[in-house]
Each structure stands twice: as C-alpha cells, then as structure tokens.
C-alpha cells in the first residue's frame, strides 16, 4: 500500500525526480524572465515563454504554513493520522512553494522556521523532505519573502 504515496513521475516532472535521486533540488526556471516555477508547467505563467529549463536551487526555505491533520484521509496501512502537512517557501523567490510533512515525534516546526531539503527513499523514488537546518544560512538576511 505504501506505493500509493509514491509520485507518478511523468515526462514533464522527470528532471525534478532525477535531481532528487542525486540529492539535489531542481525546479523549472524561465529563460526569458528568470522566474522560478513549481510544479512543472509547459510554459511560464508569468511571461508566457515556453523556454523553461530545470535549475538547481539551494533547498533552503522557511515554513510558510503548517497544519496538523487529524482526520484519516488515507487508509491506516498507508499513513496513520495525525501528522503535519506544511508548505515551504524557498529562499530563491517569494511564492516559490514546495510541500513537505512532519511526524508528531519529530521536533516541532512553526510558521517562519528555517528548514532545508533532505532526501528519503520512497519505493523507487527519492523524495525531498524539509528538516531543521544542519547548515548555516549563506547570508544574514535569511530566506526571502517571509511575509505576503
């Protein structure tokens, strides 16, 4: 049943998962307007250009929002509730979001906490998952775009 939680990789998303298997986080970047975007799209929603390429990003960000899910949306053998789901805003660009999760037994996280991507194996794929940082931030300003 765990395979229910494996991503169904497609042609557009394959570079994301191939990078993750190498321990790198990569998202699409627009050659025309230089904006990052995720999840993958056929064109840039900001400028309309179709010239997109995957680019590695730092993997550092902040917790944008977090919710403790109590309801058993998934069968217990797949995933037991409760657990946390969260949105991480990457430091490269305000509004560049990835999703992650958190178990109750792990150190708690709150909105505005710094996190960084680690990678765990899930079936045949490697999944980015955000944890408290083990490295120092590169600048004293910290991640961009803390407020909306």
């Amino acid at each position, binding site marked *: 049943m765990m395979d229910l939680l494996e991503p169904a990789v497609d042609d557009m998303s394959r570079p994301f998962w191939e990078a993750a298997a190498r321990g790198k986080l990569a998202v699409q970047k627009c050659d025309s307007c230089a904006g990052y975007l*995720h999840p993958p799209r056929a064109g840039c929603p900001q400028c309309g250009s179709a010239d997109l390429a995957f680019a590695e990003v730092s993997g550092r960000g902040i917790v944008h929002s977090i919710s403790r899910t109590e*309801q058993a*949306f998934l069968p217990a053998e797949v995933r037991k509730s409760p657990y946390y789901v969260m949105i991480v805003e990457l430091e490269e660009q305000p*509004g560049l979001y990835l*999703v992650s*999760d958190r178990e109750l037994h792990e150190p708690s996280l709150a909105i505005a906490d710094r996190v960084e991507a680690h990678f765990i194996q899930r079936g045949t794929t490697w*999944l980015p998952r955000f944890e408290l940082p083990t490295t120092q931030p590169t600048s004293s300003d910290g991640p961009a775009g803390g407020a909306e």
Partner: protein
Amino acid sequence: MTMSSQPGAAIVGVGHSSLQRGAQDSLGALTAQACMAAVSDAGLKPEDIDGLATYPKAPYSGSAGVQGSDVAGIDFMLSRFPWPRLRWFAELQTGMIASAVIEAVHAINAGACEVALVWRALHNPTGNYGSYTAPSRSGDAQFTAPYGLVSILQWHALAYARYLHEHGASREAMAEVVTQQRSNAARNPVAYFRDKPLTKDGYLSSRMISDPLSLLDCDLPIQGCAAVVIARSDLSERSWDRAANIVGYAQNLAPLSTGLHYTLADTFTVGRKLADSLWSGCGLAPSDMDTAQLYDGFSPTIYYWLEALGFCGRGEAPGFVSEGNISPTGGLPLNTFGGSLSEGRLHGIGHVIEAARQVTGRAGDRQIPDARTSVVTTGSPLLRSGALVLQSS
C-alpha cells in the same frame, strides 16, 4: 461588462427539495422535486420552460457519474420530463452554479430562450467523507500526495493557518460567524440544522479535522437539490410582481500562484479581481448591499470574501464580525439562511435563492426589513467562483 443595453433577466421562482443525510430519496427524485417546486413558485408549468442550465459536477473524487443517482445533469433532466418548448441548454464543467446562472442570462439576452430553469443537485455518498483509498499522485498531486496532502480541506487549513498567523486572529473570533449562521438557520424551514442550536463552546469543542479547521468549520454534506427559474425581465414585469433582477455578475478569472495548494495571498488577489469586475460591471458598491450571501464551504472563506469584496480591509474581517455587522440587525446581515454550514452544502445555489428571497421580501421569519439589493458569491475565491448582484425593481 455592461448590461444596461440588454433586456436583462430576473429570478422569478425558487425551490428546494428536502435536504437529506443517509438519504431516503434518490438524487433524481430530489432533483425533480426541487425543479418542479421552482417552476410552480414562478406560476409556470414545465411546458413554459425553454432553457435548461446546470453545473453538475460532484464535489468529491470517485463519482461514478450515473445520471439520477450520483449526478443530475442535462441528460437526466431531458429523460425525466418532456420539455416541449425547450430550445437551449448549457452544462458547465467549471465555474460553479453562478456560471450556469450567468450563461442563462446570456442566453436570454441573446434571444436563445426566454425562461430558463437552473438547478444544482448534490449527492452525498455513504462512508467516511473525504477519505481516499487511492489518492491521485499524478500531475501536480505527485508533489503533494506523497506527503499526505490529499484533501482540499487541508489546502484550506494551510491558508487559514497563515491568516491566523499574519493577522493575529483567533479561532474564538470565528465562533461568532458559525453560531450566528446556526441561529439564522433556525428561521429557515429547509435548513438541515434548523433544530440544532449551537453555542460558542459547542463550536470551539468540535473535533479538529486539519488544524485550524474543525468539523464545524466545514459545510454540511447533504443529498438534495435547489433550483431557480430565470426569465427575461420584460416578460417578468408583465407576469411577476416580485422579481429579483440580476443586475451584476462576475466570474473568477485570475490564475492561482501555485497548483499545489491554496495560498492566503491568492484568496485576496484572486477574489479582489472578481470583485473589481463585479462592482465596475453593475455600478454598485459594497455600501449598496442590504444583505450578503457569501459562500462558506469552509468558514474562513467568509473572511476572504468580506475582505476581497471590500466590505472591510485586508485582515479586518474578524473585527468587522465582532462589531456586530453580520447579525440580522447589523449593517450587513450575512448568510441569513444559515449558509452551507447550517442549511447544508448546495454548492452556492442556496445562497442565490436566499438573495432572491431577501430582495423580493419572501424570506419569511428571517426577512431583513427593506432589503432590496444583495450580493452572492459561489465558491471560494480559489475555485472558479462566481458572483451575482440581485436587486428588486
């Protein structure tokens, strides 16, 4: 969008089926019940109807799409009744029920029909609502499902958590919205929770689903249908003394900033774009509204609409509520029928019907004195939502 050069259209009849949980009646039976009630309320017979429109989509995954069983679209209606004068129909796949109403207005203005029946039927499946034995994990969901983010409820929870954080609001403030709506439902004979009073403590102790959304922040899944009859305004002036003219409308046009989940920023920017289109199209302003019937699939959606429509500033909705504005005696009586939280989830047509009743003086015990104009929203700002302004002559 200017409608002044058109004959215009008005809601001239409304009808509900009974609203059921653990349904005794089939969706088809309830749909027929609501539609015939609306036609009869307009003083018409089915042979007077020459247009049909609906938005039939199931609000959950896994619908088998069986007509009259778990959906009731155009095919159901064509096979259920003879419609000898029928010459136009529309079945929308996006845009919620407001878009079906708007299509009917367009058809009437274009001369494609004169009297249209618009309905919304909702099936309530048995079992634990919103559980997924096999969640989608392809497309955008490949980036969410592996983490257990599988439900639109969790999307709303994440946006609401951000709202509480940014604006320093509390769940206690929302109690006033939810208990006021429950109190309003006591004066609505079709509301599912009409006989179920709710206290602030009762709200605050309800089971958490995905923090900060509890069970009573979620609309109530029911099986049922509601319908309206929309007629050309110049016909309606001849035949109906109490018509709710559709004087403004707008659809949600803006893209979301991410396909992964809902964000708080989008609730405002996307909702504001719809609001600008609505108010500029009809030449009216929030201060002209005598009631507001705002979509409440989840309770925070009410905050988002109050702010996006301009009834108060961004982050000010909890204060707007605590000042007493939304009560039946306040400055902006809100969801005077109980909303989807207390009437039951009719996906917005319940809101449309309440606005029509209020502006035509047909809201019974819950009538707001001298109400002439009302705004309606269907859907959250983050869905393909729509909005209407109804006004009596």
